[in-house]
């Protein structure tokens, strides 16, 4: 009982804090209420005169920095603070997949200064000569020793550091336990079996070959990263059999889970956390067979037009107190030990964010070839058009 009151009051506190942050400035309040996060950045970039400015450091890094990232991944108040401190407005471009980001950078003329690649994409960017080794003298807040090597290592390719960790996460599934008779499925086998039986018409999978095919492979106990034609053929068989039973193939699954149209979905940590926080009957499950563990990074494209601002932004976001605010906003674990002293104890003890060791150890990092394998791409197209 006491716990519950405690929990609510703490949550209320965060809500009030955020309301205060948003309410403190009319413009920000408006943007917060309407949810036009990107609009704030675009507006800021289009009309820098609207933004509050301080006298120091003005113009030394230019008046803007362009960030390519994922949806709901940053606390916009942090960007406002960055702009107030440096005079550079943060312009945000939101993407849906690593492939899409890669396609934009490959095509050229992206205009990005900083972007957020996932572990398995980094070596491809290096091979394609699209990102530069980071100049650590411009990132004084990056303390390599405080980052968990498990999540930081993919940022180093060929002995050179190309990317610094932002946060990590897992790919499991979210299930509405009020629909599964009170029991919570615990394996990918159950995920796909339920989909084709009692959950028919109620399951969602990502519109993303990496996770959807990867977790179909887990049904048979194959590697999440398999590109073996025989194993992919088994996964395709399962996917085609499950397709008529799916509610949707869509990576934007929160609205349907919340409305009750969908009962189960492949899900990332942060979405699982948000769903579970608002609807406790929705559980976040890591399949016992394993699945995906991933880590997102900050990197600088070789073509970055505002290079100084790019480094300033990354360094700002790596400040432990700024990074802690980011973590509270996006709900993913940050592999920086310095945050342990700042984040609330219940966040650090949350089993959704920090799964038990045996579940965590069964997970695999996605591999570069998993992202770029043409056979997996064609399998996904056959699955979607079937």
């Amino acid at each position: 009982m006491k716990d519950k009151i405690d929990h609510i009051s703490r949550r209320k506190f965060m809500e009030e804090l955020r309301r205060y942050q948003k309410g403190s400035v009319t413009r920000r309040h408006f943007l917060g209420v309407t949810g036009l996060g990107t609009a704030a950045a675009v507006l800021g970039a289009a009309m820098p005169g609207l933004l509050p400015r301080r006298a120091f450091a003005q113009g030394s890094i230019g008046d803007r920095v362009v960030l390519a990232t994922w949806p709901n991944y940053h606390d916009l108040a942090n960007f406002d603070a960055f702009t107030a401190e440096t005079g550079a407005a943060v312009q945000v471009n939101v993407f849906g997949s690593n492939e899409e980001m890669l396609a934009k950078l490959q095509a050229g003329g992206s205009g990005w200064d900083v972007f957020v690649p996932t572990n398995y994409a980094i070596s491809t960017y290096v091979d394609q000569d699209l990102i530069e080794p980071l100049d650590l003298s411009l990132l004084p807040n990056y303390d390599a020793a405080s980052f968990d090597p498990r999540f930081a290592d993919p940022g180093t390719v060929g002995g050179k550091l190309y990317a610094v960790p932002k946060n990590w996460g897992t790919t499991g599934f979210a299930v509405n336990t009020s629909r599964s008779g009170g029991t919570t499925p615990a394996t990918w086998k159950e995920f796909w079996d339920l989909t084709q039986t009692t959950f028919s018409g109620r399951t969602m999978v990502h519109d993303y070959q990496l996770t959807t095919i990867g977790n179909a492979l887990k049904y048979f106990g194959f590697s999440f990263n398999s590109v073996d034609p025989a194993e992919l053929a088994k996964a395709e068989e399962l996917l085609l059999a499950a397709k008529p039973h799916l509610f949707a193939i869509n990576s934007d699954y929160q609205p349907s889970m919340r409305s009750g149209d969908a009962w189960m979905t492949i899900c990332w940590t942060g979405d699982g956390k948000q769903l579970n926080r608002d609807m406790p009957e929705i559980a976040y499950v890591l399949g016992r067979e394993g699945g995906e563990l991933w880590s997102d990074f900050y990197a600088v494209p070789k073509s970055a037009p505002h290079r100084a601002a790019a480094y300033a932004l990354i360094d700002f976001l790596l400040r432990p107190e700024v990074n802690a605010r980011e973590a509270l906003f996006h709900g993913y674990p940050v592999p920086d030990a310095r945050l342990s002293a700042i984040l609330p104890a219940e966040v650090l003890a949350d089993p959704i964010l920090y799964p038990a060791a045996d579940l965590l150890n069964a997970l695999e990092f996605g591999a570069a070839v998993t992202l770029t394998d043409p056979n997996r791409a064609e399998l996904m197209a056959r699955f979607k058009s079937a």
Partner: protein
Amino acid sequence: MQRRLATSVLLAPAGLWFAVMLVLPLCFVLVFSLGERGAAGGYVPAFTFEQYANLPARGQAFLNTLILAPVGTLLALLIAYPLAYHLAQGVGPKWRTMLLILVIVPFWTSILIRSYAWIFLLGGQGVPALIEWMGFGAVRLINTRFAVLTGIVYGYLPLMVLPIYVSLERLDRRLLEASADLGAPPLRSFLQVALPLSLPGVATGCMLVFILLMGEFLIPAMLGGGKVFFIGNALVDLFLQSRNWAFGAAVAVTLVAIMLGTVTFYLMLMRRLGGARGNVDLI
């Protein structure tokens, strides 16, 4: 001579626009379609027809599009024609303006936002909940072909209504009166006088809707839940997901070829309908 110079100068901006924004990109697409996919995606120069040989891999997507686009066009026509007829012949000028505005108003809102509205309308707490409450049992509407068809017909209806309305509005009422005077009942007057004279509008509306439907990807993705796969969706995936630009270009060239075939057919049809007038009106 001066006149010709003036004509060239006036046409230059549009000509330049088409050359740079339409012809040039199409040339790139054509060249890309003869290349190969790089190991990490993208495009590697080559000269091969491999991509075209691989087209059957998107056969299902072409088939889905070639079924749903004509069906959607036909449904839009069946709904639009009576509406356009009523607008042109059945209501007074004051109501006509009002109703025309109502037809056009949805165009002022992004199709993305209107599709979200349909997601809620067709979702479990929308129309299906109402149907269940009335005791007709549980139905699933969202993420079905029905939902995609509904969204398509809804989205493109104005493009069908307006050309038909224009052709019916120009219809000389005296022709209908003459037909009645000669003893034809209303249905016969309609079938033998009004309908043939409005066919150019019908053909224009059908072509506008059909061509846009062939390239549609947003409505199937949103209302079909990613399960109804159009050729437009295949293109988006090929360029942005699997980054197989060479194959994507081959699919795009094929799509453009189908469209060109449709437009050619349309122009031939219009020439025949135009008959003695010998001119081809777009609207």
